[in-house]
């Protein structure tokens, strides 16, 4: 972005995990940063790290001597805001609806995503994203170690494995299917930002092209809810999980304010019910009508 970079004029490079499933990067903690930079119209190069799946420094943005790591200052986007490179959230971050929605995202939804990626579907999605480029013995060991860590984090043991599976995935699936607007909105932005990028990026994914089929296919969902992080600390994980939703919300704001908001791209609060099921700490009564 021309006006915001005061530090250096060098071109930024975003280092993420590999592209898969039709996405420029399939890792749910990397994709929000990518979308954020795209929405901000900041020119950057995309580079991949294929050998360090258990690093919490990735994704990071760098250019020669400047680096904004994922595990510093609250994340890459926060670091970029602080270093005045890019800031899309300046107008909305004090709104109460914003705060409550992000808190909601950071709690049960992030757990569900974590479960879905690592425990559900045999964890094959996660294996493909993170370990498919590592030599077999290393990839296997790291993968098993991470699955074990996630199960510890979610409190899943042999006894409650089935019960948890029902809780996490069926609710998530059901609720997302009830939000066709959200799915449409996500698809629309995907078309604008990600498909255009994949044709021009240096390493387009050659994996299956699923996302067009809509919310019934789980592989597409990590894109629209790409907040899943493999760090040990829950706090870190939740913080990172809010990025995508923030960028989505802001983009909608911008869209509506600039073009009059002819679509009803209103995104309802994903129901108070499911929140209640897990930890009930969300404020159910409110609807986050941020853009009215």
């Amino acid at each position, binding site marked *: 972005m021309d006006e915001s970079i005061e530090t250096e004029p060098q071109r930024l490079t975003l280092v993420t995990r590999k592209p898969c499933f039709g996405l420029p990067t399939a890792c749910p903690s990397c994709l929000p940063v990518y979308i954020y930079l795209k929405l901000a119209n900041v020119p950057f190069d995309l580079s991949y*790290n294929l*050998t360090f799946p258990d690093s919490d420094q990735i994704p990071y943005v*760098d250019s020669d*001597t*400047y*680096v904004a790591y994922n595990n510093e200052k609250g994340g890459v986007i926060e670091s970029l805001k602080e270093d005045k490179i890019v800031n899309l959230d300046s107008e909305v971050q004090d709104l109460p609806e914003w705060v409550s929605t992000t808190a909601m995202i950071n709690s049960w939804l992030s757990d569900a995503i974590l479960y879905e990626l690592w425990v559900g579907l045999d964890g094959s999605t996660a294996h493909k994203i993170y370990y498919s480029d*590592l*030599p077999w*013995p290393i990839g296997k060991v*790291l993968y098993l170690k991470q699955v074990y860590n996630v199960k510890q984090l979610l409190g899943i043991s042999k006894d409650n494995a089935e019960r948890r599976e029902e809780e996490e995935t069926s609710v998530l699936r059901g609720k997302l299917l009830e939000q066709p607007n959200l799915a449409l909105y996500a698809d629309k932005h995907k078309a604008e930002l990600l498909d255009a990028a994949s044709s021009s990026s240096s390493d387009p994914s050659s994996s299956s092209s699923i996302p067009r089929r809509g919310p019934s296919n789980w592989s597409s969902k990590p894109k629209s809810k790409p907040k899943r992080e493999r760090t040990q600390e829950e706090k870190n994980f939740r913080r990172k999980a809010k990025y995508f939703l923030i960028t989505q919300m802001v983009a909608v704001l911008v869209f509506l304010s600039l073009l009059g908001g002819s679509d009803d791209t209103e995104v309802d609060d994903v129901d108070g019910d499911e929140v209640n099921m897990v930890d009930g700490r969300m404020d159910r009564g409110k609807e986050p009508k941020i853009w009215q």
Partner: protein
Amino acid sequence: MANQDDKPYSEIEEEDDTEDEEEEDDDFNEDEEEEEQQPLLTPESKMQTQRSQMEQVFHRISSERVPLRVHDVLIKGNTKTKDFIIEAEIEALKTATSVQELLQAATIANARLRKLDVFDSVSITLDSGPPELPGTSNVVVQVVECKNPLTGDVGVFTKPEARSWSLEGSLKFKNLFGYGDLWDGSLSYGWDQTTEVSAGVSLPRFMKLFTPVMARVSLLSQDWLKFSSYKEQSLGLSLGLLSTRNHDLAYNLSWRTLSDPSQMASKSIRRQLGHGLLSNLKYTFKIDRRDSPLRPTKGFAFVSASQLGGLFPDYRSLRSIRQEFDLHYALPLGFARAALNFGVAGGVIFPWGSDFKNRPTSLPDRFFLGGNSSPVCTLGGPTSLLGFKTRGLGPSEPKREVKTNSEDANSDTSERDFLGGDLAVTAFADLSFDLPLKVLRDSNIHAHAFACTGSLTKLTENSFREFSLQKYKDSFRSSAGIGLIVPTKLFRMEVDSRGTMNPETPNHVRVRI
């Protein structure tokens, strides 16, 4: 089973340093029969007779070839050790055809059995063969197995490869299963913050291989944060397949992780962080004909090491070819024990496989020049270059800049990461001589003057396209100096004053151990 006669007529006791035959007694079947038929004599005349017989025997051995063959080889004293282990070391005894050959074979066999390191003592006795078979001998090998198979060791060692000292503690267990197997576990902590925990086993005979086979599992952690902003951790298995005096072949499989906990790495280092699988075969040829490894005054030495990486069936393992060599020559000057030592060393590493021209080499496999080890004593590729700090030569990049609160736009000392290089060449010349004072000469304290030069360049990622001879010549850095060397029993201390032909690096005095 020994002869009917319960008195062994001949016995060979070997010292470690003996090869001459004056200390051996020997006697033969032919003499035995004559002795039995002799009439009873006084003790003095008996002794005289025996002495004259011995003299005759010695005369015969030294002047002519005395034919003798081995009828039977008996092994005694091995309760745990398997027979075939001992038999393998004494093969040459069975094929001896004369006394001289037999004595030589017995000497060698004794040394080889002691080298197994599982016996407290070894003695080989040449006994007379059965009386009905003249000209034969029975060989009795008597071994005493180690009473205490567990030994421990703590020490401080210098490691030329790591260019530093290390404190090591190890436990050895000898002959656990009776195959001459030596088990050891060791823990070592290096002064450059290298930590290694390893366990290994060595087998003298494994299947049909004629050299000992070794296997070692090790967990290693090396900290290069100060010089190159990365930490290396590796879990590896190495198999020594062939190990003789000059040749060494080993296979190494390890899982290596590079990480940067300081988060200050430069761009190239950041791109290298991650996990990797190494699977390589390393062949080393070494020949050292110098008279002393610490203060060579004549002779030469040559080492060549070739390493082929990427042998694991998985195509994603690290693939590269690495070759290095080191040649030293010492020329005596004939006065004051002075000697001129020359040396030249070089090495190159290049990746192979798909897209090899664009891929960088793996960071820890590259060559790094600099450091404090003496080029005269270090034999093993282009590593040491006096006058430069550890890893101080070659390509480097600025580390990450972190803005502080004090509004300093640019920090004064921008630190740099040293990246190593793919092509390394070093050369040195060193003149060492005794000092005039007798007290210094007696303690082997001597002086030396040296000059060395080196260059480190990057070839990968298409850098070789910009390679030009002029640029390469310009990349050489040199240093020269004089110093004093104080060798002690434990280490060798060197005090040098040196300067580099490089305006940025100041001259300095250094003490090295």
